Protein backbone atom coordinates (compact mmCIF):
# COMPACT_ATOMS: atom_id res chain seq x y z
CA UNK A 1 0.00 0.00 0.00
CA UNK A 2 2.95 2.29 0.51
CA UNK A 3 3.36 5.40 -1.60
CA UNK A 4 7.11 5.02 -1.83
CA UNK A 5 7.14 1.81 -3.85
CA UNK A 6 8.70 2.34 -7.25
CA UNK A 7 5.86 0.61 -9.08
CA UNK A 8 2.40 2.08 -8.93
CA UNK A 9 0.80 -0.63 -11.04
CA UNK A 10 1.99 -4.19 -11.32
CA UNK A 11 0.33 -6.65 -13.68
CA UNK A 12 0.94 -10.32 -13.07
CA UNK A 13 0.18 -12.98 -15.65
CA UNK A 14 -2.94 -11.27 -17.00
CA UNK A 15 -5.02 -13.47 -19.28
CA UNK A 16 -8.24 -12.46 -21.01
CA UNK A 17 -10.30 -14.71 -23.23
CA UNK A 18 -13.46 -13.79 -25.11
CA UNK A 19 -14.91 -17.22 -25.86
CA UNK A 20 -12.22 -19.09 -27.80
CA UNK A 21 -10.30 -15.95 -28.57
CA UNK A 22 -7.36 -15.17 -26.30
CA UNK A 23 -6.85 -11.42 -26.45
CA UNK A 24 -4.33 -11.06 -23.64
CA UNK A 25 -2.05 -13.99 -23.06
CA UNK A 26 -0.05 -13.76 -19.86
CA UNK A 27 0.98 -10.13 -19.56
CA UNK A 28 3.54 -9.16 -16.90
CA UNK A 29 4.42 -5.49 -16.64
CA UNK A 30 5.40 -2.94 -14.03
CA UNK A 31 4.44 0.69 -14.39
CA UNK A 32 6.86 3.00 -12.57
CA UNK A 33 5.60 5.83 -10.38
CA UNK A 34 5.69 9.38 -11.67
CA UNK A 35 6.76 8.41 -15.17
CA UNK A 36 5.16 8.17 -18.58
CA UNK A 37 4.67 4.64 -19.84
CA UNK A 38 3.56 4.18 -23.43
CA UNK A 39 1.86 0.95 -24.44
CA UNK A 40 2.46 0.39 -28.12
CA UNK A 41 1.35 -2.14 -30.65
CA UNK A 42 -0.52 -2.63 -33.87
CA UNK A 43 -4.28 -2.36 -34.22
CA UNK A 44 -5.98 -5.34 -32.63
CA UNK A 45 -2.99 -6.41 -30.51
CA UNK A 46 -5.04 -5.95 -27.32
CA UNK A 47 -3.67 -2.65 -26.05
CA UNK A 48 -7.04 -0.99 -25.51
CA UNK A 49 -8.35 -4.19 -23.90
CA UNK A 50 -5.31 -4.14 -21.63
CA UNK A 51 -5.98 -0.53 -20.66
CA UNK A 52 -9.63 -1.30 -19.92
CA UNK A 53 -8.44 -4.02 -17.51
CA UNK A 54 -6.28 -1.54 -15.65
CA UNK A 55 -9.32 0.63 -14.90
CA UNK A 56 -11.50 -2.43 -14.23
CA UNK A 57 -13.90 -1.87 -17.11
CA UNK A 58 -13.09 -5.49 -17.98
CA UNK A 59 -12.44 -8.33 -15.56
CA UNK A 60 -9.57 -10.65 -16.52
CA UNK A 61 -10.01 -14.38 -17.05
CA UNK A 62 -7.08 -14.85 -14.70
CA UNK A 63 -4.15 -12.90 -13.30
CA UNK A 64 -3.60 -10.05 -10.89
CA UNK A 65 -3.48 -6.28 -11.21
CA UNK A 66 -1.89 -4.56 -8.23
CA UNK A 67 -2.45 -0.84 -7.73
CA UNK A 68 -0.25 0.53 -4.93
CA UNK A 69 0.29 -3.07 -3.89
CA UNK A 70 -3.39 -4.02 -3.60
CA UNK A 71 -5.07 -6.39 -6.03
CA UNK A 72 -8.00 -4.78 -7.83
CA UNK A 73 -9.27 -7.92 -9.56
CA UNK A 74 -12.65 -9.01 -8.22
CA UNK A 75 -13.25 -5.99 -6.00
CA UNK A 76 -16.83 -4.96 -5.25
CA UNK A 77 -18.16 -1.85 -6.98
CA UNK A 78 -17.80 0.21 -3.81
CA UNK A 79 -14.20 -0.88 -3.17
CA UNK A 80 -13.35 -0.34 -6.82
CA UNK A 81 -14.81 3.17 -6.75
CA UNK A 82 -12.38 4.00 -3.94
CA UNK A 83 -9.49 2.81 -6.10
CA UNK A 84 -10.88 4.74 -9.07
CA UNK A 85 -10.49 7.96 -7.11
CA UNK A 86 -6.76 7.61 -7.87
CA UNK A 87 -7.48 7.35 -11.61
CA UNK A 88 -8.23 9.75 -14.39
CA UNK A 89 -9.00 8.50 -17.85
CA UNK A 90 -8.90 10.20 -21.23
CA UNK A 91 -11.00 8.25 -23.71
CA UNK A 92 -10.20 7.99 -27.39
CA UNK A 93 -13.35 9.88 -28.42
CA UNK A 94 -13.11 12.29 -25.44
CA UNK A 95 -16.45 10.94 -24.08
CA UNK A 96 -17.66 14.38 -23.00
CA UNK A 97 -21.31 14.57 -21.92
CA UNK A 98 -22.97 16.24 -24.86
CA UNK A 99 -25.89 17.67 -22.93
CA UNK A 100 -23.61 19.67 -20.61
CA UNK A 101 -21.38 22.66 -21.15
CA UNK A 102 -17.60 22.38 -20.99
CA UNK A 103 -17.60 23.75 -17.44
CA UNK A 104 -20.33 21.37 -16.27
CA UNK A 105 -18.43 18.46 -17.77
CA UNK A 106 -15.32 19.26 -15.75
CA UNK A 107 -17.48 19.82 -12.67
CA UNK A 108 -19.18 16.39 -12.76
CA UNK A 109 -16.55 14.48 -10.70
CA UNK A 110 -16.22 17.42 -8.30
CA UNK A 111 -19.96 17.62 -7.69
CA UNK A 112 -20.28 13.87 -7.27
CA UNK A 113 -17.30 13.17 -5.05
CA UNK A 114 -16.78 16.31 -2.98
CA UNK A 115 -18.89 18.55 -0.78
CA UNK A 116 -17.43 21.76 -2.16
CA UNK A 117 -19.68 24.76 -2.65
CA UNK A 118 -20.66 25.73 -6.21
CA UNK A 119 -18.40 28.82 -6.06
CA UNK A 120 -15.34 26.77 -5.16
CA UNK A 121 -16.19 24.22 -7.84
CA UNK A 122 -16.43 27.03 -10.39
CA UNK A 123 -12.95 28.20 -9.41
CA UNK A 124 -11.46 24.69 -9.60
CA UNK A 125 -13.06 24.19 -13.01
CA UNK A 126 -11.49 27.44 -14.22
CA UNK A 127 -8.08 26.38 -12.88
CA UNK A 128 -8.27 22.96 -14.52
CA UNK A 129 -9.32 24.46 -17.84
CA UNK A 130 -6.45 26.92 -17.57
CA UNK A 131 -4.04 24.00 -17.03
CA UNK A 132 -5.06 22.60 -20.41
CA UNK A 133 -5.02 26.02 -22.06
CA UNK A 134 -8.75 26.60 -22.41
CA UNK A 135 -9.42 29.66 -20.27
CA UNK A 136 -12.86 31.13 -20.82
CA UNK A 137 -14.44 28.15 -22.55
CA UNK A 138 -16.69 27.16 -19.62
CA UNK A 139 -19.97 28.01 -21.32
CA UNK A 140 -19.33 26.36 -24.68
CA UNK A 141 -21.13 23.15 -25.57
CA UNK A 142 -18.98 20.17 -26.64
CA UNK A 143 -20.29 20.34 -30.22
CA UNK A 144 -19.14 23.95 -30.53
CA UNK A 145 -15.44 23.18 -30.03
CA UNK A 146 -12.89 21.30 -32.13
CA UNK A 147 -11.72 17.72 -31.63
CA UNK A 148 -8.42 18.81 -30.09
CA UNK A 149 -10.19 21.11 -27.66
CA UNK A 150 -12.58 18.31 -26.70
CA UNK A 151 -9.58 16.15 -25.87
CA UNK A 152 -8.23 18.92 -23.67
CA UNK A 153 -11.57 19.38 -21.90
CA UNK A 154 -11.69 15.63 -21.33
CA UNK A 155 -8.19 15.87 -19.89
CA UNK A 156 -9.28 18.70 -17.59
CA UNK A 157 -12.16 16.51 -16.44
CA UNK A 158 -9.80 13.54 -15.94
CA UNK A 159 -7.53 15.60 -13.65
CA UNK A 160 -10.40 17.36 -11.84
CA UNK A 161 -9.95 15.32 -8.67
CA UNK A 162 -6.12 15.44 -8.81
CA UNK A 163 -5.60 11.77 -9.63
CA UNK A 164 -2.26 10.05 -9.15
CA UNK A 165 -2.53 8.05 -12.35
CA UNK A 166 -3.93 9.22 -15.68
CA UNK A 167 -4.69 6.80 -18.51
CA UNK A 168 -4.78 8.01 -22.09
CA UNK A 169 -6.39 5.96 -24.84
CA UNK A 170 -4.90 7.05 -28.17
CA UNK A 171 -4.60 10.74 -27.21
CA UNK A 172 -3.44 11.78 -30.68
CA UNK A 173 -5.96 9.76 -32.69
CA UNK A 174 -7.90 11.79 -35.23
CA UNK A 175 -5.96 15.00 -34.60
CA UNK A 176 -3.66 16.92 -36.93
CA UNK A 177 0.10 16.61 -36.14
CA UNK A 178 0.31 20.05 -34.51
CA UNK A 179 -2.67 19.49 -32.21
CA UNK A 180 -1.43 15.98 -31.46
CA UNK A 181 1.96 17.34 -30.42
CA UNK A 182 0.23 19.94 -28.25
CA UNK A 183 -1.57 17.10 -26.47
CA UNK A 184 1.78 15.36 -26.06
CA UNK A 185 3.20 18.49 -24.48
CA UNK A 186 0.25 18.63 -22.11
CA UNK A 187 0.85 15.02 -21.08
CA UNK A 188 4.51 15.81 -20.42
CA UNK A 189 3.65 19.02 -18.55
CA UNK A 190 1.02 17.45 -16.35
CA UNK A 191 3.13 14.45 -15.53
CA UNK A 192 6.12 16.59 -14.50
CA UNK A 193 4.27 19.50 -12.84
CA UNK A 194 1.71 17.47 -10.95
CA UNK A 195 3.87 14.37 -10.57
CA UNK A 196 1.26 12.20 -12.22
CA UNK A 197 1.92 8.66 -13.40
CA UNK A 198 0.80 8.46 -17.01
CA UNK A 199 -0.13 5.37 -18.99
CA UNK A 200 -0.57 6.13 -22.67
CA UNK A 201 -1.89 3.71 -25.26
CA UNK A 202 -0.73 4.76 -28.67
CA UNK A 203 0.42 3.50 -32.02
CA UNK A 204 2.00 6.76 -33.08
CA UNK A 205 5.74 6.30 -32.99
CA UNK A 206 6.75 9.94 -33.08
CA UNK A 207 4.59 10.87 -30.14
CA UNK A 208 5.61 7.76 -28.21
CA UNK A 209 9.33 8.52 -28.58
CA UNK A 210 8.70 12.15 -27.65
CA UNK A 211 7.00 11.52 -24.33
CA UNK A 212 7.85 8.02 -23.10
CA UNK A 213 10.06 7.19 -20.14
CA UNK A 214 9.23 3.56 -20.71
CA UNK A 215 7.73 1.82 -23.75
CA UNK A 216 5.93 -1.51 -23.63
CA UNK A 217 5.43 -3.17 -27.02
CA UNK A 218 2.48 -5.54 -27.19
CA UNK A 219 2.08 -8.07 -29.96
CA UNK A 220 -0.60 -10.75 -30.25
CA UNK A 221 -1.60 -10.33 -26.63
CA UNK A 222 1.91 -10.67 -25.24
CA UNK A 223 4.61 -8.27 -24.13
CA UNK A 224 7.20 -8.27 -26.91
CA UNK A 225 9.62 -5.79 -25.45
CA UNK A 226 9.96 -3.31 -22.59
CA UNK A 227 12.49 -0.51 -22.66
CA UNK A 228 13.30 3.16 -22.96
CA UNK A 229 12.67 4.99 -26.23
CA UNK A 230 16.29 4.46 -27.31
CA UNK A 231 16.24 0.77 -26.50
CA UNK A 232 13.10 0.31 -28.58
CA UNK A 233 14.54 2.36 -31.46
CA UNK A 234 17.61 0.12 -31.53
CA UNK A 235 15.66 -3.07 -31.02
CA UNK A 236 16.87 -6.15 -32.86
CA UNK A 237 13.33 -7.52 -33.08
CA UNK A 238 12.15 -7.54 -36.69
CA UNK A 239 8.49 -6.87 -35.77
CA UNK A 240 9.45 -3.85 -33.67
CA UNK A 241 11.58 -2.53 -36.53
CA UNK A 242 8.75 -3.03 -39.04
CA UNK A 243 6.41 -1.24 -36.66
CA UNK A 244 8.74 1.70 -36.02
CA UNK A 245 9.42 2.27 -39.69
CA UNK A 246 5.82 1.70 -40.69
CA UNK A 247 6.63 -0.71 -43.51
CA UNK A 248 3.82 -2.62 -45.13
CA UNK A 249 5.97 -5.69 -45.86
CA UNK A 250 7.92 -7.59 -43.22
CA UNK A 251 7.14 -10.08 -40.50
CA UNK A 252 3.52 -9.01 -40.79
CA UNK A 253 2.60 -9.65 -44.44
CA UNK A 254 0.56 -7.11 -46.41
CA UNK A 255 -1.75 -9.70 -47.89
CA UNK A 256 -3.53 -12.04 -45.57
CA UNK A 257 -6.30 -14.55 -46.14
CA UNK A 258 -9.07 -14.63 -43.58
CA UNK A 259 -7.94 -18.12 -42.51
CA UNK A 260 -4.39 -16.91 -41.91
CA UNK A 261 -5.72 -13.92 -39.97
CA UNK A 262 -7.88 -16.11 -37.75
CA UNK A 263 -5.05 -18.58 -37.30
CA UNK A 264 -2.78 -15.73 -36.29
CA UNK A 265 -5.29 -14.51 -33.73
CA UNK A 266 -6.01 -17.95 -32.32
CA UNK A 267 -2.39 -19.07 -32.17
CA UNK A 268 -1.56 -16.57 -29.43
Amino acid sequence: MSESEPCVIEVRNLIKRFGDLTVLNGINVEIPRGQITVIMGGSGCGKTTFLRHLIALHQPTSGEILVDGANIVGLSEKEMNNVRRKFGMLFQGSALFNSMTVGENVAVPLKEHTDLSPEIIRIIVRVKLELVGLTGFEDFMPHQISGGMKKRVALARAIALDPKIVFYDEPGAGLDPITASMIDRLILDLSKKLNITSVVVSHEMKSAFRIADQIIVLHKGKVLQVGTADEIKNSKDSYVQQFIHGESEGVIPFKQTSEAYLKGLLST
Partner: protein
Amino acid sequence: MKEFAGKTGQSIFFILSGVARLWNLGSAVVGYTLSSFFKRKVIPREVLFRQMVLIGIDSTAIVSLVGASVGTVLALQAAYSLKTFGALMYTGSLVCVAMARELGPLIAAIVISGRIGARMAAEIGTMMVQEEVDALITMGINPIRYLVAPRVLALALMLPCLTVIVDIVGMIGGWAIGTTGLGINSSLYIAKSIEALCLKDIYTGLLKSFIFSILIALVSCHQGLSVSGGADAVGKATTQAVVISIVLIIVVDCLATAVIYYALPT
Protein backbone atom coordinates in the same frame (compact mmCIF):
# COMPACT_ATOMS: atom_id res chain seq x y z
CA MET B 1 -41.58 -30.55 -33.75
CA LYS B 2 -38.19 -30.51 -32.09
CA GLU B 3 -37.38 -27.23 -33.80
CA PHE B 4 -40.70 -25.75 -32.72
CA ALA B 5 -40.13 -26.78 -29.12
CA GLY B 6 -36.62 -25.36 -29.27
CA LYS B 7 -37.82 -22.05 -30.65
CA THR B 8 -40.63 -21.81 -28.10
CA GLY B 9 -38.24 -22.57 -25.28
CA GLN B 10 -35.83 -19.99 -26.61
CA SER B 11 -38.54 -17.31 -26.79
CA ILE B 12 -39.74 -18.10 -23.27
CA PHE B 13 -36.19 -17.95 -21.99
CA PHE B 14 -35.68 -14.66 -23.85
CA ILE B 15 -38.81 -13.12 -22.33
CA LEU B 16 -38.05 -14.37 -18.82
CA SER B 17 -34.46 -13.14 -18.92
CA GLY B 18 -35.74 -9.77 -20.13
CA VAL B 19 -38.18 -9.62 -17.21
CA ALA B 20 -35.37 -10.56 -14.82
CA ARG B 21 -33.09 -7.82 -16.17
CA LEU B 22 -35.89 -5.25 -15.90
CA TRP B 23 -36.56 -6.42 -12.35
CA ASN B 24 -32.89 -5.99 -11.43
CA LEU B 25 -32.77 -2.53 -12.95
CA GLY B 26 -36.03 -1.61 -11.23
CA SER B 27 -34.89 -2.82 -7.82
CA ALA B 28 -31.61 -0.91 -8.16
CA VAL B 29 -33.58 2.25 -8.97
CA VAL B 30 -35.90 1.69 -6.00
CA GLY B 31 -32.84 1.21 -3.79
CA TYR B 32 -31.30 4.50 -4.92
CA THR B 33 -34.62 6.31 -4.59
CA LEU B 34 -35.10 5.09 -1.02
CA SER B 35 -31.55 5.94 0.00
CA SER B 36 -31.92 9.41 -1.52
CA PHE B 37 -34.30 10.20 1.37
CA PHE B 38 -31.48 9.65 3.86
CA LYS B 39 -28.38 10.69 1.93
CA ARG B 40 -27.66 13.75 -0.15
CA LYS B 41 -26.47 13.54 -3.72
CA VAL B 42 -27.73 10.04 -4.45
CA ILE B 43 -29.88 11.20 -7.34
CA PRO B 44 -28.41 14.17 -9.21
CA ARG B 45 -30.91 17.01 -8.98
CA GLU B 46 -29.99 18.82 -12.17
CA VAL B 47 -30.56 15.68 -14.21
CA LEU B 48 -33.86 15.05 -12.43
CA PHE B 49 -35.16 18.59 -13.01
CA ARG B 50 -33.94 18.69 -16.61
CA GLN B 51 -35.82 15.47 -17.29
CA MET B 52 -38.94 16.71 -15.49
CA VAL B 53 -39.03 19.83 -17.64
CA LEU B 54 -38.46 17.80 -20.77
CA ILE B 55 -41.14 15.26 -19.94
CA GLY B 56 -43.68 17.48 -18.24
CA ILE B 57 -43.62 20.97 -19.64
CA ASP B 58 -42.33 20.26 -23.12
CA SER B 59 -44.85 17.46 -23.68
CA THR B 60 -47.92 19.33 -22.43
CA ALA B 61 -48.90 20.77 -25.81
CA ILE B 62 -48.78 17.56 -27.80
CA VAL B 63 -50.44 15.55 -25.04
CA SER B 64 -53.25 18.13 -24.82
CA LEU B 65 -53.79 18.11 -28.57
CA VAL B 66 -54.09 14.32 -28.64
CA GLY B 67 -56.30 14.35 -25.52
CA ALA B 68 -58.70 16.91 -26.98
CA SER B 69 -58.96 14.99 -30.23
CA VAL B 70 -59.68 11.74 -28.45
CA GLY B 71 -62.37 13.38 -26.28
CA THR B 72 -64.04 14.87 -29.34
CA VAL B 73 -63.97 11.65 -31.32
CA LEU B 74 -65.28 9.72 -28.35
CA ALA B 75 -68.25 12.09 -27.97
CA LEU B 76 -69.09 11.88 -31.67
CA GLN B 77 -68.87 8.09 -31.81
CA ALA B 78 -70.74 7.57 -28.55
CA ALA B 79 -73.54 9.90 -29.67
CA TYR B 80 -74.10 7.77 -32.76
CA SER B 81 -74.94 4.69 -30.68
CA LEU B 82 -76.58 6.47 -27.76
CA LYS B 83 -78.96 8.31 -30.07
CA THR B 84 -80.59 5.03 -31.15
CA PHE B 85 -81.56 4.42 -27.51
CA GLY B 86 -82.62 8.02 -27.03
CA ALA B 87 -79.86 8.41 -24.48
CA LEU B 88 -77.93 11.23 -26.11
CA MET B 89 -77.68 13.13 -22.83
CA TYR B 90 -75.49 10.38 -21.38
CA THR B 91 -72.72 11.23 -23.84
CA GLY B 92 -71.08 13.37 -21.18
CA SER B 93 -71.00 10.61 -18.57
CA LEU B 94 -69.55 8.17 -21.07
CA VAL B 95 -66.81 10.52 -22.20
CA CYS B 96 -65.81 11.47 -18.65
CA VAL B 97 -65.72 7.95 -17.27
CA ALA B 98 -63.87 6.61 -20.31
CA MET B 99 -61.31 9.41 -20.20
CA ALA B 100 -60.64 9.11 -16.47
CA ARG B 101 -60.56 5.34 -16.25
CA GLU B 102 -58.95 4.30 -19.48
CA LEU B 103 -58.20 6.67 -22.29
CA GLY B 104 -56.42 9.39 -20.31
CA PRO B 105 -53.75 7.10 -18.81
CA LEU B 106 -53.43 5.05 -21.99
CA ILE B 107 -53.16 7.94 -24.45
CA ALA B 108 -50.72 9.85 -22.25
CA ALA B 109 -48.56 6.75 -21.80
CA ILE B 110 -48.49 5.92 -25.51
CA VAL B 111 -47.65 9.46 -26.58
CA ILE B 112 -44.94 9.68 -23.92
CA SER B 113 -43.44 6.30 -24.79
CA GLY B 114 -43.03 7.56 -28.36
CA ARG B 115 -41.76 10.95 -27.34
CA ILE B 116 -39.75 10.32 -24.17
CA GLY B 117 -39.08 6.57 -24.19
CA ALA B 118 -37.50 6.74 -27.62
CA ARG B 119 -35.47 9.73 -26.55
CA MET B 120 -34.19 8.02 -23.40
CA ALA B 121 -33.16 4.89 -25.29
CA ALA B 122 -31.44 6.87 -28.05
CA GLU B 123 -29.68 9.19 -25.62
CA ILE B 124 -28.36 6.48 -23.30
CA GLY B 125 -27.56 4.26 -26.31
CA THR B 126 -25.48 7.00 -27.89
CA MET B 127 -23.75 7.56 -24.56
CA MET B 128 -22.86 3.86 -24.53
CA VAL B 129 -21.44 4.05 -28.05
CA GLN B 130 -19.43 7.20 -27.33
CA GLU B 131 -17.90 5.70 -24.16
CA GLU B 132 -19.66 8.30 -22.00
CA VAL B 133 -21.08 5.56 -19.78
CA ASP B 134 -17.58 4.07 -19.44
CA ALA B 135 -16.36 7.55 -18.53
CA LEU B 136 -18.97 7.70 -15.75
CA ILE B 137 -17.87 4.30 -14.44
CA THR B 138 -14.19 5.31 -14.42
CA MET B 139 -15.14 8.43 -12.47
CA GLY B 140 -16.66 6.10 -9.89
CA ILE B 141 -20.22 7.17 -10.78
CA ASN B 142 -22.75 4.38 -11.11
CA PRO B 143 -24.65 4.90 -14.40
CA ILE B 144 -27.87 3.44 -12.97
CA ARG B 145 -27.78 5.96 -10.16
CA TYR B 146 -26.72 8.87 -12.37
CA LEU B 147 -28.65 8.19 -15.58
CA VAL B 148 -31.47 5.73 -14.97
CA ALA B 149 -32.78 6.66 -11.50
CA PRO B 150 -33.47 10.36 -12.27
CA ARG B 151 -35.20 9.44 -15.53
CA VAL B 152 -37.46 6.86 -13.90
CA LEU B 153 -38.28 9.24 -11.08
CA ALA B 154 -38.97 12.17 -13.39
CA LEU B 155 -41.32 10.12 -15.53
CA ALA B 156 -43.06 8.62 -12.49
CA LEU B 157 -43.74 12.15 -11.22
CA MET B 158 -44.73 13.70 -14.53
CA LEU B 159 -46.81 11.06 -16.32
CA PRO B 160 -49.67 11.15 -13.76
CA CYS B 161 -49.67 14.96 -14.11
CA LEU B 162 -49.88 14.68 -17.89
CA THR B 163 -52.67 12.13 -17.45
CA VAL B 164 -54.68 14.66 -15.46
CA ILE B 165 -54.21 17.16 -18.28
CA VAL B 166 -55.33 14.61 -20.89
CA ASP B 167 -58.37 13.73 -18.76
CA ILE B 168 -59.43 17.36 -18.42
CA VAL B 169 -58.72 18.39 -21.98
CA GLY B 170 -60.49 15.29 -23.30
CA MET B 171 -63.55 16.05 -21.18
CA ILE B 172 -63.55 19.64 -22.41
CA GLY B 173 -63.27 18.36 -25.99
CA GLY B 174 -66.26 16.08 -25.44
CA TRP B 175 -68.23 18.91 -23.84
CA ALA B 176 -67.41 21.29 -26.70
CA ILE B 177 -68.62 18.91 -29.38
CA GLY B 178 -71.55 17.72 -27.25
CA THR B 179 -72.95 21.21 -26.65
CA THR B 180 -72.28 22.59 -30.12
CA GLY B 181 -72.35 19.72 -32.62
CA LEU B 182 -74.74 17.38 -30.85
CA GLY B 183 -76.94 20.05 -29.34
CA ILE B 184 -76.95 18.78 -25.74
CA ASN B 185 -77.76 21.40 -23.11
CA SER B 186 -74.52 22.51 -21.48
CA SER B 187 -75.64 22.32 -17.85
CA LEU B 188 -77.29 18.95 -18.43
CA TYR B 189 -74.05 17.64 -19.99
CA ILE B 190 -72.01 18.83 -17.02
CA ALA B 191 -74.51 17.55 -14.45
CA LYS B 192 -74.63 14.10 -16.05
CA SER B 193 -70.83 14.00 -16.21
CA ILE B 194 -70.39 14.85 -12.54
CA GLU B 195 -73.08 12.36 -11.58
CA ALA B 196 -71.33 9.53 -13.43
CA LEU B 197 -67.79 10.27 -12.37
CA CYS B 198 -66.61 8.98 -9.01
CA LEU B 199 -63.30 9.44 -7.23
CA LYS B 200 -62.26 5.84 -7.79
CA ASP B 201 -62.34 6.36 -11.57
CA ILE B 202 -59.76 9.10 -11.22
CA TYR B 203 -57.35 7.55 -8.76
CA THR B 204 -57.31 4.15 -10.41
CA GLY B 205 -56.53 5.92 -13.68
CA LEU B 206 -53.66 7.76 -12.02
CA LEU B 207 -52.40 4.55 -10.42
CA LYS B 208 -52.32 2.93 -13.84
CA SER B 209 -50.44 5.85 -15.32
CA PHE B 210 -47.88 5.61 -12.50
CA ILE B 211 -47.33 1.93 -13.35
CA PHE B 212 -47.03 2.79 -17.06
CA SER B 213 -44.45 5.48 -16.31
CA ILE B 214 -42.21 3.01 -14.48
CA LEU B 215 -42.55 0.52 -17.33
CA ILE B 216 -41.71 3.06 -20.04
CA ALA B 217 -38.70 4.47 -18.20
CA LEU B 218 -37.25 1.10 -17.20
CA VAL B 219 -37.73 -0.48 -20.62
CA SER B 220 -36.28 2.54 -22.44
CA CYS B 221 -33.27 2.94 -20.15
CA HIS B 222 -32.61 -0.79 -20.25
CA GLN B 223 -32.69 -0.77 -24.05
CA GLY B 224 -30.32 2.18 -24.07
CA LEU B 225 -27.88 0.52 -21.67
CA SER B 226 -27.80 -2.70 -23.70
CA VAL B 227 -26.53 -0.93 -26.83
CA SER B 228 -23.19 -2.13 -28.07
CA GLY B 229 -21.73 -1.31 -31.44
CA GLY B 230 -22.72 1.68 -33.49
CA ALA B 231 -25.53 3.71 -35.00
CA ASP B 232 -27.63 0.74 -36.07
CA ALA B 233 -27.63 -0.63 -32.53
CA VAL B 234 -28.91 2.74 -31.27
CA GLY B 235 -31.64 2.69 -33.91
CA LYS B 236 -32.64 -0.83 -32.98
CA ALA B 237 -32.71 -0.02 -29.26
CA THR B 238 -34.89 3.03 -29.89
CA THR B 239 -37.44 1.08 -31.92
CA GLN B 240 -37.39 -1.77 -29.41
CA ALA B 241 -37.92 0.64 -26.53
CA VAL B 242 -41.10 2.06 -28.07
CA VAL B 243 -42.47 -1.28 -29.27
CA ILE B 244 -41.83 -3.11 -25.99
CA SER B 245 -43.15 -0.19 -23.95
CA ILE B 246 -46.42 0.01 -25.91
CA VAL B 247 -46.99 -3.75 -25.84
CA LEU B 248 -46.27 -3.87 -22.10
CA ILE B 249 -48.51 -0.85 -21.45
CA ILE B 250 -51.46 -2.51 -23.16
CA VAL B 251 -50.90 -5.92 -21.56
CA VAL B 252 -50.47 -4.42 -18.10
CA ASP B 253 -53.48 -2.17 -18.69
CA CYS B 254 -55.54 -5.26 -19.43
CA LEU B 255 -54.38 -6.98 -16.24
CA ALA B 256 -54.72 -3.87 -14.10
CA THR B 257 -58.24 -3.15 -15.33
CA ALA B 258 -59.30 -6.73 -14.66
CA VAL B 259 -57.83 -6.64 -11.16
CA ILE B 260 -59.03 -3.17 -10.18
CA TYR B 261 -62.60 -3.35 -11.45
CA TYR B 262 -63.43 -7.05 -11.25
CA ALA B 263 -61.17 -8.85 -8.77
CA LEU B 264 -61.04 -6.23 -6.02
CA PRO B 265 -64.18 -5.51 -3.98
CA THR B 266 -65.84 -2.25 -5.01
